[in-house]
């Protein structure tokens, strides 16, 4: 496909452009590698020993429905190449597909289709603007995502979807009040499954698991596609597990997997529930299967750390090696690190590197989980005063996260504040006694130490 270049929201100078084109070339190289590696990862590898396909059934691609849509839209734009909304719909379908498959080549295809749409219809092209906003969010460029989303909502104030993209960008940029207002507007326009899922998340971020669960149940009921249902089930599962109800988490994930076998997010959620129940062998199986579908950093880290906690350091090192290789790819692409990558560097690499990653990440994306990871990196590097400020920002909305609480508790302890440390560490364990295979035991040990200290 030959694609004309199109203007981005911020047109740069000539110098910028040549810099960008160098960067583009390098990114393409890296993307190519990512694609090749991804393909090998997805196709070439069976789930690990004893890993099995879940439920022993033949595993349909979780992305099949989306893939069908993409094929049909490709046919549509082939027949009607002048149709700007058709290209925009194809681009958005790619973005949604990538959400499930995590295949970076799909993002490139999404951008190509969206750029064609904008070329065909540069002004007031809400569909393409919304699609670009979603694409930039998927690539974690939330500043660019916000710029596109704002254009989209000003062109189409009644578009529920455009308000959804706006809400996502504000959330990740740490502008929560504006995010919640956008979610309110989105669900006032159309309280459908995507809007209800976002409404649920606003309560989850504010630590109201009950309302978050109730709204995710409503999102599930309103879901019209298997992918939407799988998303809702995965998060219902995690909401339960991470508030100390892994049995419910397991049931939710199991039900989801019965409807959409092989869905990686559901496998990961079920693995997490098994971990919470102490079923480590099953947790390993599920994590392994999820990693085989899409080896996202968070999954690799969870698998590696679970193995490490079982004393299988050799196997854990394999996961960590992959994470390090991914980090090289990330750096070559000059993409800011994600939360799991910062945590990985902090706990399994050099804390100084983690601090550098965290500083860069938090500047681009001052979201609470990034504050948490940066704070943890600072703590690991011995900079506990700065670490505490970040940990406080991570918990500023009242998010009920055992991991965040553990991080802050350990920072308090390092700062010689045992009362505050005990409060946070105790809260972490009360919330979810098995929140992490390595850190939960450390939490207990730290509490014992605090209580033993006169």
């Amino acid at each position, binding site marked *: 496909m030959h694609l004309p270049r199109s203007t981005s929201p911020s047109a740069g100078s000539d110098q910028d452009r040549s810099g960008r084109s160098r960067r583009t070339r390098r990114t393409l190289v*890296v*993307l*190519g*590698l*990512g*694609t*090749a590696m*991804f393909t090998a990862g997805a196709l070439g590898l069976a789930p690990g020993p004893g890993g099995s396909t879940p439920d022993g059934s033949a595993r349909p691609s979780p992305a099949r429905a989306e893939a*069908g849509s993409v094929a049909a*839209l490709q046919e*549509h734009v082939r*027949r*009607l190449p002048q*149709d*700007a*909304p058709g290209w925009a*719909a194809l681009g958005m*379908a790619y973005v*949604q597909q*990538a959400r499930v498959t995590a295949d970076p080549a799909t993002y490139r295809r999404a951008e190509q289709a969206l750029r064609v749409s904008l070329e065909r219809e540069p*002004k007031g*092209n*809400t*569909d393409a603007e919304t699609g670009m906003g979603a694409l930039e969010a998927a690539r974690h460029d939330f500043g660019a995502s916000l710029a596109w989303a704002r254009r*989209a909502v000003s062109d*189409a104030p*009644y*578009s529920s979807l*455009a308000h959804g993209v706006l809400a996502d960008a504000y*959330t990740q940029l740490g502008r929560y009040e504006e995010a919640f207002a956008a979610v309110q507007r989105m*669900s*006032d*326009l*159309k*309280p*459908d499954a*995507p809007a209800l*899922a*976002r*409404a649920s*998340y*606003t309560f989850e971020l504010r630590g109201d698991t009950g*309302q978050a669960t109730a709204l995710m149940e409503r999102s599930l009921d*309103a879901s*019209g*596609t298997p992918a*939407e249902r799988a998303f809702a089930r995965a998060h219902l599962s995690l909401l339960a597990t991470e508030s100390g109800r892994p049995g419910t988490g397991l049931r939710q994930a199991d039900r989801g997997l019965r409807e959409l076998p092989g869905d990686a997010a559901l496998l990961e959620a079920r693995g997490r529930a098994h971990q919470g129940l102490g079923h480590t062998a099953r947790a390993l199986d599920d994590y392994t299967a999820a990693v085989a579908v*899409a080896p*996202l950093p*968070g999954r690799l880290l969870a698998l590696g750390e679970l193995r490490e906690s079982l004393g299988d350091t050799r*196997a854990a090192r*394999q996961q960590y*090696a*992959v994470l390090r*290789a991914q980090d*090289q*790819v990330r750096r070559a*692409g000059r*993409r800011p690190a994600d*939360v799991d990558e910062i945590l990985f560097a902090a706990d399994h690499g050099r804390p100084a590197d983690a601090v550098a990653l965290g500083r860069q990440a938090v500047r681009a994306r001052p979201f609470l989980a990034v504050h948490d990871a940066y704070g943890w990196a600072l703590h690991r590097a011995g900079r506990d005063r700065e670490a505490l400020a970040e940990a406080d920002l991570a918990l500023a909305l009242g998010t009920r996260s055992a991991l965040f609480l553990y991080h802050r508790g350990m920072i308090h302890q390092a700062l010689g504040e045992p009362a505050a440390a005990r409060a946070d560490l105790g809260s972490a364990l009360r919330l979810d006694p098995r929140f992490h295979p390595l850190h939960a035991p450390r939490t207990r040990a730290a509490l014992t130490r605090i209580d033993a200290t006169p």
Partner: protein
Amino acid sequence: MKKSSARSKRLLDHSLLVLGATAMAGALGAVTLAPGVSSASSHREAPLIAGDPRADNTDVYAFTSPDKSDTVTLVANWIPFEEPNGGPNFYSFADDARYHIKIDNDGDGTADTTLTWRFRTTVRDAANQFLYNTGPVRSLDDPNLNVRQSYDLTATRNGRTTVLARNAPVAPSRTGVASMPDYATLRGQAVRPLQVAGGGKAFAGQADDSFFADLRVFDLLYGGNLSERGQDTLAGYNVNSVALQLPKKFLALRGDTARNPVIGVWSTTERNGVDVSDSRKARGWRQVSRLGNPLVNEVVVPLKYKDAFNTLNPSQDHTVKPVVDKVYDPILPKLIQKVYGIPAPATPRDDLAEIYLTGICKACGPIKADLNAQRLNKDAAVRRIVPAEELRLNMAVPPAAHPNRLGVLAGDLAGFPNGRRLTDDVLDISLQAVEGAAQSGTLVPALAEGDKVNANDVPFGRSFPYLALPHVKDVNTAGSRAVEQSSARTNASVAFGGAGALLLGAGGWRLRRRKRA
């Protein structure tokens, strides 16, 4: 294909240089391989494209019952492109939505009668809840029918709500010949009497999609032409329908069909709102979908305003200037002129405003007939009448002995745009109307063939609910049509947002089914 794999290989070679062999060796030696730049771990990517087919109004019909002419039959469809035997696909109405058919008697754009369906799903054997049926189903209360729906139907007028049917059964999705050997019997058992003076009937359940058209006609709107026509895009698919047969007296203003024979009809779907400051607070029902006239977004209201249009009550239509402007100055005839040289009728299009916004009457505009404007109701106050998009039916027009698919344009006053019958060829009628045929009184010969689809793929019934039984054959095994149809379906699930300034939207099917987002 070949080319792109060669390209990947070249890129991989470059990548090896960029990364250095050590890292690659480490990566390749590992159990799993990296996804490169993808990074969906900590950022919650909730779904964006809303597939909400259960809220998706596709068509509304209103006609004098041909076999019971003191009654009107109202039909509304939801859930487009139901694939038969798609198993384990069964299609249910949403328990968490409200479904409405609304009636406006006095032309103020506000419902005088609101008919509301609320559905409930029950699962007989919860342990087996993924099985729709556990054996052959021979009646609606067959224990083998595991998942079943029922509904309450109410009528609200002047703030008073009365129950027309309580706990009525929904005809199940037709899951196959073996599992439902006599579906016609099941369908018959789902036709229930209504608690209405003078009697009435209700039906809810799966049916053949009664709409027929080759939606590729609207390729015009996307820069295409009329070169591909003649295949019913909807053939073989099912929908979920509700149907009512009601006495005309029940529907007429003041119950007086002689003085007030005209009704305006549309359907809506509502979902319950949410308050992000406290989700336990009520925020009320939100209208997410609306449909009156067929093909309204294709022919007159630009898809750009589709999202707004879906939230509006007809009484508000005239307050949204761009919507009204496009009725008077539509895009479609200009595209037809550009491609085919058929001159677009002069604007403003008062004739289209009559068809879509006021109903047809001599005092209403240029069409020389007193047909179906609420202004013809003697008890309707003229000063309160506003332009509002509704499907209007004059109940005094007797049913045609031999209905013509082109309805009013062919002199058959009992058809669209005077109400809409199942057999009306609304695509051809709409094309002709947008080219000015209603005003000129003559069909535009160059478009005489229309979409070359003149009737539904299966015949309709002769008695209530008239709808054809659901299909049982998988559509997408049918060969060459599959791509087109899946294209249409795809657009159903992926279309979103306001469309572009000139082009009305992505994907033919969207044309008629206005609001997929």
